[in-house]
């Protein structure tokens, strides 16, 4: 199946879509990094289960 030729409208909006895509990818990477740092700095303390520590 042959690809359809992109519409002129899509060509015009290419820079916007690409820019937004890059921004979203950076946002995901930043949130991931922030999560790693937060979790490393303040390790999650699990509540001791019943019967533990005997």
């Amino acid at each position, binding site marked *: 199946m042959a690809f359809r030729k992109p519409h*002129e*409208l899509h060509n*015009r909006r290419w*820079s916007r879509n690409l*820019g937004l895509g890059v921004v979203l990818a950076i946002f995901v990477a930043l949130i991931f990094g*922030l999560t790693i*740092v937060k979790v490393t700095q303040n390790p999650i303390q699990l509540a001791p289960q019943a019967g533990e520590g005997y």
Partner: protein
Amino acid sequence: MTDASIQTQPETGEATFGDYVALLKPRVMSLVVFTAAVGLLAAPGTVHPFIAFFAVLCIAIGGGASGALNMWYDADIDRVMKRTANRPIPSGRVGADEALAVGLTLSGFAVVMLGLASNWVAAGLLAFTIFFYAVVYTMWLKRWTPQNIVIGGAAGAFPPMIGWAVATGGVSIESVLMFALTFMWTPPHFWALALFMNSDYEKAGVPMLTVTHGRRVTRRHILAYTVLLAVLAIGAAFTSIGGPIYLTVAVILNAMFLFGAWKIWRRDEEMAAADGYRREKRFFALSLLYLFLHFGAILAEAALRPWGLGGW
């Protein structure tokens, strides 16, 4: 609905991604990033480098968002002024409602993310900064009083305080001093610009001091504020953010700044027009270097402190 209803003809000046970036006033953002980073790095205490980077990014985005809100509200003025006529909204590339949506979304995003990443004092200060710039300055002061940039200058002066709050979780005399330095620097910086951009403000009906009280009064104000700024800037050298490097930089730059302001004060319009406002333009360029080097010196003092070299 059929495809026939979709607008496929090129609109004049359709927005590119760069136009949305321009809404955030990248040049103002660079000043925000620098002063916020200095406030954060000069503060006592340690912050994880990634959180520091993330916090400065949030402060920059918050500053940019307030710039977008400013462009949304001021589109009518920007259309009239030569300096701003090509901005995304007056040129028709970005719709005013789009700019409002970008400004509000990014404001909320920046404040919440800064609060989650660092602390809510810093986030509160950022929220207040955005409010101050978009509402107090843009919607109220700018069109009402010739003291617009004196009071409105506070918005641009908050970033080092926010940076400091990221590291310490509070406000202290040192962060207030950094705020005061930018606050006192703003009037001479903008009034010098207004002297050689006067016709723009006049056309737009913005009550700049040059328009309401004339250029003679503006020249006098530039000198008065520069004297007050010099006292503050050199005085800060003897506090905990200062040191020998800062003192040297402050003495040299304030001597140059005072000399420039004095030259501006002595000139009249005939002299200024004869050389195309050369002195005023030079003073404006020096003012950019002035702020950059003062904050650079504060950063240098803080950076050298671990080796026992920075500070007194």
